[in-house]
Each structure stands twice: as structure tokens, then as C-alpha cells.
């Protein structure tokens, strides 16, 4: 299977995001990336849009719903939001959207910093296998994978997508 190349997706995403923000009359949004891949994509979008602003970084490890099954991520790092969330328009960015559970955790975490005016969701890839009612506003490409397949973003430079096959039990 041929995976799309991030550098080809990003210009389209940047245009689509700009259109989306204009249509919704959102001015001066702040960007938040979900660690690690989402941070890379968010930075690439900021660069593509010629925006110079500090990027927010979320580590959703403390908010995941699989703590009782998977335990605590030993590589957890602090979240860093160098701006006020209260009343702010946010652009939340992740690399791969699959079940929607990471985005659920990210939204819960964001609301612990304050009440944002709006959240726009941007994802590089949509694997179209949602388990929660969460939909992206801007997406680079949608893929249909078989159940044992996963996609991982390598980065930060250059960004590249990699296909992985899980060992089925």
C-alpha cells in the first residue's frame, strides 16, 4: 500500500484550515499539538501559514481512558501551554486520528486549563475507525486499513509516514 507523503498533504491542509477559520470568523487562533506527532504537524502548519507564535504542547498520558489496562506511560512529559486557554480559539492538531480516544483525552485536558472559545480539530491522517463521536474539521487524507495495520508518523524532520503490522493474537 502506498502511503501519502506529509509534505504533499500539508499545503492542502494549510489552505483548508485557513478557509475553515475564515468561514467561522475565527481570528488569531492558538495552535496546540498532541505529543509527539501532533506537535510536528502543528509546527509544519504554522510554518506553512507563515505564523510566528508559541506552540502549545499537550501530553495526554494523565487523561487516557486505558490507565487500568495499560498503566501509566513511563515516558510522560509535562504539557506546555504558553498562553491562556480561557476564551481562546484553539486549533488542536494530531498526526493520526483513529478511535477518537486521544482527542477525547486532549479535550478533557484542555478544559482543565480554561474554557476555550472554540476548538478546531486538524489531523494529518484519518483512519476512519472511530469509536467516539469525534470528527476532524480539516484532514490531510483518509485511509482504510485492515485491522492489524497501523500508521506511525516519523519526524520531526523530515516527516514521513510508516506502515506497521501488529502481530495478531
Amino acid at each position: 500500500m502506498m502511503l501519502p507523503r506529509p509534505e504533499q498533504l500539508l499545503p492542502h491542509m494549510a489552505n483548508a484550515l485557513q478557509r475553515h477559520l475564515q468561514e467561522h470568523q475565527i481570528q488569531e487562533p492558538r495552535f496546540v499539538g498532541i505529543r509527539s506527532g501532533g506537535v510536528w504537524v502543528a509546527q509544519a502548519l504554522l510554518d506553512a501559514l507563515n505564523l510566528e507564535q508559541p506552540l502549545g504542547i499537550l501530553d495526554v498520558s494523565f487523561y487516557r481512558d486505558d490507565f487500568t489496562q495499560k498503566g501509566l506511560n513511563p515516558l510522560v512529559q509535562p504539557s506546555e501551554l504558553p498562553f491562556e486557554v480561557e476564551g481562546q480559539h484553539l486549533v488542536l492538531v494530531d498526526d493520526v486520528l483513529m478511535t477518537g480516544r486521544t482527542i477525547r483525552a486532549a479535550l478533557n485536558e484542555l478544559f482543565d486549563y480554561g474554557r476555550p472559545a472554540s476548538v478546531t480539530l486538524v489531523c494529518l491522517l484519518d483512519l476512519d475507525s472511530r469509536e467516539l463521536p469525534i470528527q476532524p474539521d480539516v484532514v490531510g487524507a483518509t485511509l482504510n486499513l485492515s485491522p492489524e495495520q497501523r500508521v506511525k508518523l516519523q519526524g520531526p524532520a523530515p516527516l514521513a509516514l510508516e506502515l506497521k503490522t501488529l502481530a495478531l493474537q
Partner: protein
Amino acid sequence: MLPTDAKRPLQLNDNGQLRHFLSLDGLPCTLLTEILDTADSFLEVGSRAVKKVPLLRGKTVCNVFFENSTRTRTTFELAAQRLSADVITLNVSTSSASKGETLFDTLRNLEAMAADMFVVRHAESGAAHFMAEFVCPDVAIINGGDGRHAHPTQGMLDMLTIRRHKGDFKNLSVAIVGDILHSRVARSDMLALKTLGCPDIRVIGPKTLLPAGLEQYGVRVFHNLEEGLRDVDVIVTLRLQRERMQSGLLPSQGEFYRLYGLTSERLKVAKPDALVMHPGPINRGIEIESAVADGKQSVILNQVTYGIAVRMAVLSMTMSGQNAQRQLNQETRELN
């Protein structure tokens, strides 16, 4: 005099993750570093509008204090609450134990309350080990200080304080001053510093307040405060534990201050940016001068803040280790 931890594997699960937290003895550098890294992330949570994460939602943490404590008890309570756990605190010193109930019976009663973790403080060394050995599976025991033996969360919050102010442990000289004999904090600090690779650990105190067998911790012993403090990066002052002291160990408190009290004058012997630490509660004018305790080199109140983050890390990591062990046991059962 210095109990070693023959039961050390008790606190790890089959994957080598924490499932109880009893002592720092035998815990590898990677695990101590993981605690510090996790605590760093929790420290950031304390600066948010909502200082709470949902990790331990629906879990019950029971603080069982057989011995009085304010700082340790309240920071454990706050840590559990910031992890969204439900918390109850039992001051057993004022209840059943004084009515003659054994530790074993107290434990069985607490289990019947279906708590998921117990934080135990006890005046007897080894109390937390005892409870970890006999507690029912899936319940985590955290040592909140046992006798003269160990105070591992205090040890780790001291390490977090040092790491956040000094970067790492590689080139540091750390002096621990005062009543080492009665101090579980000193034992936990020495173990942690050694494991984390601190090359110069010094212990300073009068012969009567230094335990035998200090060599096993790889420390240098000083009886003269000025000599011991020369060019150190960190000074850990200990509380003079009057309540644990039998008469005869010291001529008087005044004499102790004259010889071992940390004064502004003596602080000058250490490096100019040396940290002054103290586990609290401080005895002003007995082991430390007020001007030093409140001075700009003092990080005594930072230690309290870091203590919450370290306790959040330990509570969530042990709960995580208990969950993992339960799954391992389940998989083993399914295979058989």
C-alpha cells in the same frame, strides 16, 4: 541498627514496576529517574486552573497514620485528590491502636473498607513491609515513614528538589547534617543519592547521633561542621528529634546549636549557590538559624510543593504496577 531490605522484591511486580513503595533500598537508577520524570510532569499540573487529573478516579486511597504528621499527611491527601482519588485519613494513633488492636487486625479492618492503596506511617521500623506482606492482592502499600528505617517519598522529593535546582547529580557534593541516628530521611536520602550517582555524599554530626555501619552507604563522615560543609552544593539539615531521643546523647540543645547549628556564618563555607534543605518541621535556633531558613538559598518551602508532585508520581506508578500485575496473573490463569 540499620535494617536492610531483604524483602525488597516485594515492592516490584513481575515486570520490575513498582507495586508497593516501601524503601529505596535496591531500587535501580532507572526506576528512581522514572519517578522524578513523572513527578516533573505532575508539577506542571499544579500550576493549572484545574489542578486535577483523572488518573485514579474511582480509586480509594486510605492514609493510615499511626504516628502524628502534618506535612506528609496533608501532601499525601492533596496528591491523591489531585489524581481524582477518594481519600480517607485515619489517625490510628488516637484510636484503635491505643485500645489494643494489633496491626494485623487493623489491616484486616481497613481491607474490609475496600481501599485500593494504603499510605502507612508508623513509629516501628518495618511496619509498611509487614503490611505489604500480608495485605490482600491488588492493594498497594506506600511507606509514609516507618520508625528510623525509611521515608522514601521524602527521599525522592529531596532528589527532585536537588535535580530541579542543580540539573543532575553527577558532580555534586551533598552534606547531610545533624541527627542522623534517628533520621529515616537521612537513610532514604543517602540511598537515593548513591543510586543516582552522586559522587560525594557527606554526613556531619556528633558521634552520639551517627549510627554504626554508615560505610555501607558510601558516605564520608565528619564531626566538624565547617570541615564537612566546605564547598558543598547542597546542605540537608535534619530536625533534632527530641521525641525520639533518650537522655545522654546530647549535653544540651544549646550545645548542639553551638556546634552543629547551620548559621549564616557557617553557610559561607559552602559554595555561594549551595541549596539549604530541611524536611520540616524546622526547629529555629536549634539546628538552623532563622535567617538561613528564610534566606535566599533556602528551598525548604519548594520541597513541600515538590512533595505533592512526587507523591502523585508514586501513587499513580504503584497503582499502574498493581494493574499490570493483575493482568499478568489473569493471563497466567488463562494459559493454565
